[in-house]
């Protein structure tokens, strides 16, 4: 099935709704067309093209609802999927948390995430980009392993209360790891864009190559508390654990870092340094997102943490109505305000510290304090008197991002980055943090 335009989606979804005999009916459609290419040991090892479309029908009788999905789009199949969702709804137990569907909503019109030229990128363009990356690795006698994927996606929804929404985007994600032949140096780079033409796989590979070459002959220094400069890629994997927990229900239920004794929460409290401002905004041109949530609620700019104070928590419509709080959907991209300094300027202003270019295998140790563990990877460097002095061996850390954001020294200029853990895209600054806790050394390169 091809990628549907807004009007094509409207016609198809209206046709599906026409089959409905339920009290309420909602139809969501998601389509994607794209491909990927993977390489290692300086050669391509897998690549593929993937095209999928899925239509989901939710039917409800009172508080009983059923969901059915299909990927066939002839009239008989469309009617069948509606009937199936209705059968399931009749068989389902009443869900006390079921909420009546939303009526028409005001969604900002946005085409920021769509690039027409990127929609036609195929196997040849992907192979060409990888060839640029391989040219760098071969010229420098390094070993490259990387992954490139791009797609065009769209989503649309319509329900029996008159709500209709549509969004489309193009996306590209690239990552590369360069290793020295002796296995003693390793460097990494990753980029995410909506516009494929912004990708410069050769330049990104140069960055990874420079890190690989400069991380050879790493020295061991004692674990302990250090001032660190975290590149945005490292910031992402730590802060996304905060972003994911800015949820009203888990806070109210007493089982999140946002909970306080006696059933209270930290909403409205000074949680971190007053220079911390975190928000989401689907209309940000550097990180455009969908202007509506999967249930049709509008996605607007939300200030989650302002001057270090938690200003908002997301909530399902059920939880919001039960508690009498705003029903803010979870964000689909997060932005942290920063300063104007480049990474190089942050390093220049550091007397003693450690530059962390990437973190890896992040896991929650204690959800009560958001304590996380993980390791540095692909280039860690000792800074002295404003200069990178030498590469150091990797560390394991045990640190809470909440404690970390209270130990904030300086923020650099934000840039778009991708989490190596979740693949989520964020706009984040490099951060300089004091007393970051490294607990042991790792021999890994």
């Amino acid at each position, binding site marked *: 099935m091809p990628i549907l335009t807004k009007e094509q989606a409207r016609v198809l979804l209206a046709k599906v709704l026409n089959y409905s005999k339920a009290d309420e009916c909602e139809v969501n459609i998601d389509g994607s067309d794209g491909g990927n290419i993977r390489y290692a*040991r300086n*050669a391509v090892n897998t*690549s593929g*093209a993937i095209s999928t479309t899925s239509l989901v029908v939710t039917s409800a009788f009172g508080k009983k609802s059923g969901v059915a999905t299909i990927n066939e789009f002839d009239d008989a199949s469309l009617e069948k999927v509606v009937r199936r969702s209705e059968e399931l709804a009749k068989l389902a137990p009443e869900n006390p948390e079921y909420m009546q569907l939303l009526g028409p909503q005001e969604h900002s019109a946005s085409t920021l995430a769509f690039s027409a030229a990127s929609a036609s990128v195929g196997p040849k363009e992907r192979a060409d980009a990888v060839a640029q990356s391989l040219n760098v690795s071969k010229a420098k006698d390094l070993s490259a392993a990387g*992954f490139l994927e791009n797609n065009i996606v769209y989503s649309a929804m319509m329900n029996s209360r008159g709500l209709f929404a549509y969004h489309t985007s193009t996306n590209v994600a690239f990552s590369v*790891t360069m290793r020295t032949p002796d296995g003693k140096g390793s460097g990494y780079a990753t980029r995410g864009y909506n516009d494929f033409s912004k990708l410069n796989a050769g330049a990104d590979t140069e960055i990874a190559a420079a890190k690989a070459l400069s991380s050879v002959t790493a020295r061991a220094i004692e674990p302990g508390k250090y001032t660190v400069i975290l590149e945005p890629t490292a910031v992402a994997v730590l802060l996304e654990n905060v972003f994911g927990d800015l949820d009203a229900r888990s806070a109210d239920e007493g089982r999140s870092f946002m909970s306080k004794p006696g059933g209270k929460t930290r909403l409205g409290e000074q949680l971190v340094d007053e220079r911390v401002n975190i928000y989401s905004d689907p209309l940000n041109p550097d990180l455009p997102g969908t202007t509506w949530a999967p249930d049709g609620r509008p996605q607007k700019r939300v200030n989650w943490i302002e001057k270090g104070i938690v200003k908002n928590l997301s909530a399902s419509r059920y939880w919001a109505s039960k508690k009498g709080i705003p029903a803010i959907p979870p964000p689909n991209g997060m932005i942290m305000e920063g300063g104007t300094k480049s990474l190089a300027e942050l390093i220049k202003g550091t007397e003693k510290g450690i530059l962390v270019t990437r973190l890896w295998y992040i896991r929650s140790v204690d959800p009560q*304090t958001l304590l996380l563990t993980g390791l540095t990877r692909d280039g860690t460097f000792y800074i002295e008197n404003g200069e990178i002095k030498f590469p150091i061996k*990797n560390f394991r850390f045990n640190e809470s991002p909440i*404690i970390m954001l209270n130990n904030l020294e300086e923020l650099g200029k934000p840039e778009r980055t991708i989490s190596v853990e979740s693949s989520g895209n964020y706009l984040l600054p490099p951060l300089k943090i004091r007393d970051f806790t490294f607990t*042991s050394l790792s021999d890994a390169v």
Partner: protein
Amino acid sequence: MLPSIPVWGNEISVEKSLEYTDPAAKKIIADVALNAARVKGATYTDVRIGRYLNQYVVTREDKVENIVNTESYGVGIRVIANGSWGFAATDKMDKDSIAKTAELAVAIAKENSRLLTEPVQLAAQQGFGEVSWKAPIEKNAFEVPVKEKADLLLAVNDAAMKNGADYISSILFMVNEQKYFASTDNSYIDQDIHRIWPTFYITRINKETGKFESRDALSSPMGMGYEYLDARPEHKIHTAGGILYKGRYDMLEDAKQGALQAGDKLKAKTVEPGKYDLVLDPSHLWLTIHESCGHPTELDRVLGYEANFAGTSFLTLDKWKSGKFNYGSKEVNITADKTEKGSLGAVGYDDEGVKCGKWDVIKDGVLVNYQAIRDQAHIVGLEQSQGCCYADNWSSVQFQRMANISLQPGKKELTVAEQIKNVEKGIYIIGSGSFSIDQQRYNFQFGGQLFYEIKNGKIVGMLKDVAYQSNTQEFWNSCSAVCDQRDYRLGGSFFDGKGQPMQTSAVSHGSATARFNGVNVINTGRKIG
């Protein structure tokens, strides 16, 4: 907290999930693809026709949150042309679409061959003709009415709430892979694979202090049918840490003790950091085995194919070639086994038509072998693949995945009670918790579910805020005793992730309770706000 639940397919009715496609019909489809690829110049082709069924029942306290039945049906075609791999997949099952997909796979292989450095070398594999393999289950979980499953979970939740839980989520995951494999080696292999995982997550809160603790189920995901939930007395092991389960699982009983133990955790003493002798239960040790032995002995990691994502391995080829790399103590014997009954990785044949078997990976503490597939076998001097190839769906390309990797039980008679009795200063750890390991598998940190302090051979109380950090080689060399066969149990992972785009696989790890001396334990307690 709940893991995210991957849903791979389209929703279908329960009745439809019980239908089984005739292998003869699948052979016709497979031959269309094999012929189409050959005509376009493929020198090797394999075809995987897969029907992947999942059923998930999800509840929370007194509510059924979701019942999901999904089906994914289609064909994946892999070829070698101009010395390169190519792959394409489709869910359009008419002959024309399948032939076009085979042709696309050949075209992609030819496109990739311009970036080729060395042609694919595929280990020879005999054809098996038309054969089949079925998981030896006793009760097909898909035949059990959904209501019976939902009622069980609601009873589990009720039992936990009555015993002090503030919140509980419980889930039943059930998987049936109906896989048909055909190749130009003249194999036509039909397989029926079943997996099940009942689990829960209990939370207890001290409202005055605001502290909360959780206790996850001590079940294991298994390559079994619904019979896994029918535990009899012989499947229960009574220990100082409560009742543990061997081969079968009593979910209701575990929910009751889990709620009580979550309460005990709220009152537990915080650990004093330092060196301890650890006594690790199989419900915990499986994850340490998975991360520190299973992954580093995967040959694709050793060779660098995972360098950009999961990482490489410290178990480099020179260490294996030396024949004397001291991975662990003499007590450490670790095998790879794709045949163990009830395990998640058990199949008759892997996803490139290789008959599965069992082999040593660590023998008397020494690294002796890896886990390889057909295009890697020649690198380690093998004439044949070890059968470790797997794809998580018809639409995913198969690649090297972990076999069941298990620590063999000790040869001398030793019970858990005797193991604990011999420890002066130690911690007995049950259940898996937080886990993290570096990209070459040297440095790791593990938490757990239940921690009991051992002093002079006796359990003296519960501890909290415990995590241990070690280096893989140092850790396995500190292994001083493994309980005997009577205590051998399987743990495992239902959703092990690897590759780009990431694929999941399910794998078991067996062990008996084992002791590790002088391991570094840290205190994970912190304060915010």
